[in-house]
């Protein structure tokens, strides 16, 4: 939407300069970690000295990092699967369903996004210790699913809202039964939303620290929890290498989402 007014006017130039500064403020700090992870020095101080893979080597040697990586991958994958199934069903139920108390149901589904995460964390901790699920894979997957489900519902719900329902009517009028209509018409249309929701669910679990701190034990730790422990105790740049790996995984997945989103047939 090109608007009247030249980009050469002093106001616009000032705005542009602020914009550039803000982009640096938003993205820059994360990028600082990357050169840090290749430092040849022994300590975490700026600027990085020389170039070395020593911290990546140390990360690979230390079994706690590779264990944490695999645990996180497992938890995030299972969380993505469970919350995608639950969330897609919920989106269909909320968008197309009609039932009393729908507003409350909505609020419940979105509330994990708003309730302070520390409260969720200690609440889960107290609750799951009763059920003996703390420090176990299923316990953490269930906890992460509660945090991830809203993102699936939002993503699938948006596509459901904007899709053209005449396509379903057409399928039905051509003799397809409701189940066939769903799988052959509706599902392929909402698939990009489901896919985006699944990736967001994965990222949510992959990055999650606070609930994980309370829900894991020394025997079973995820990567962010391992980082949290290390960051507070040791200041060697290994964490910078781990952080770079974490960031690469998240950013790659996010790019997938952005690509998937482009294909959503809106209206």
């Amino acid at each position, binding site marked *: 939407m090109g608007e009247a007014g030249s980009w050469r006017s002093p106001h616009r130039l000032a705005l542009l300069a602020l914009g550039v500064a803000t982009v640096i403020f*938003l993205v820059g700090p994360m990028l600082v970690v990357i050169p840090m992870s290749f430092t040849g020095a022994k300590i975490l101080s*700026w600027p990085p000295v020389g170039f070395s893979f020593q911290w990546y080597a140390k990360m690979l040697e230390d079994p706690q990092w590779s264990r944490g990586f695999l645990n996180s991958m497992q938890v995030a994958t299972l969380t993505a699967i469970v919350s995608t199934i639950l969330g897609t069903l919920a989106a269909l139920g909320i*968008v197309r369903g009609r039932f009393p108390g*729908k507003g409350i149901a909505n609020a419940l589904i979105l509330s994990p996004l708003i309730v*302070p995460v520390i409260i969720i964390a200690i609440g889960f901790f*107290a609750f799951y210790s009763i059920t003996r699920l703390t420090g176990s894979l299923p316990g953490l997957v269930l906890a992460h*699913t509660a945090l991830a489900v809203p993102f699936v519902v939002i*993503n699938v*719900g948006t596509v459901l809202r904007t899709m053209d329902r005449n396509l379903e009517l057409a399928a039905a009028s051509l003799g397809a039964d409701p189940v066939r209509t769903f799988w052959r018409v509706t599902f392929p249309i909402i698939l990009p939303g489901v896919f985006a929701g699944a990736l967001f669910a994965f990222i949510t679990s992959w990055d999650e620290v606070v609930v994980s701190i309370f829900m894991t034990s020394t025997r079973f730790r995820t990567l962010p929890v391992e980082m949290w422990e290390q960051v507070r105790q040791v200041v060697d740049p290994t964490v910078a290498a781990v952080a770079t790996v974490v960031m690469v995984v998240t950013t790659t997945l996010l790019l997938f989402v952005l690509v998937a989103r482009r294909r959503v047939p809106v209206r």
Partner: protein
Amino acid sequence: MLFLRPVFGRAGRRTGGPLVNRWALLAIPVLIFLLVGFLAPLLIMAVRSVTDLPAGSEGDPLTNFRRFFGGEANLRVLGNTFFIAGLSTVGCLLIGYPYAYLMRLASPRWAGLLLIAVLVPFWSSLLVRTYAWQVILRDTGLINSTLRGWGIINQPLDLYQTTTGVLLGMTQILLPFMVLPLFTTMARIDPELTKAAANLGASPTRAFLRVFFPLSVPGVLAGSLLVFVLALGFYITPALLGSPKNTMLSAFIATRVQQQLDWGLASAMAMVLVAITLVVLFLASRVIRVRDVFGALDAE
């Protein structure tokens, strides 16, 4: 587009037709899951705040709340939490408003790129971003080393483990939550309105102040309230960038549980935090659509 009304908003109900249809059945699994796996734990805490009483409390169910509001250190933490959350909100607004306005003025392609600059950090690990701020703020970090290299300072600036450091980190981390609702609101403002103001003789500044800005106020409120609520519950960033002197409520609660095993007091504090959040959110729900923010990728 009215799917997912604001939290605590009124349910949209169409007239006519059955009260319940078959699609509604599909929402049952997630509702049961959240009732058992999410709401129940919170309710247990609510109960513990009035039943887990310390010895010698003579069964007064409000003992934990009295302990919380009676302790000077506790009130200092509460005050500090409001202080940091408030300043982060102001910081986000000052940086976020011009940015969202720039997005609004830019061509769709540039607006898309500016949006990605918001979304990438939005979806990146909170811990990684906080760690990055450690690398930047430490005495031997990016800022201090650079300034010393240029000969501007001799002594390192006090950034790490100070309120300044916490504010910098939290403002950067929360900024997307300000920009996204702001941009969503601004994108809905009809450009013809400012043009009309200009045609009627208003200077660009006047057109902005009298026409554009008032129309963007719902976005300002939505973003500010959202940032404030989220900032109130921040744990990781203040714990890593701050010091015991400027502890926020979340870290304080965590310590009660982890080190002192004082579940009663921790639960009472948690209830206070939830209550504050709910009040702020209730006010927010008048102007905000939560979906606009969290369905971030639809922000166009």
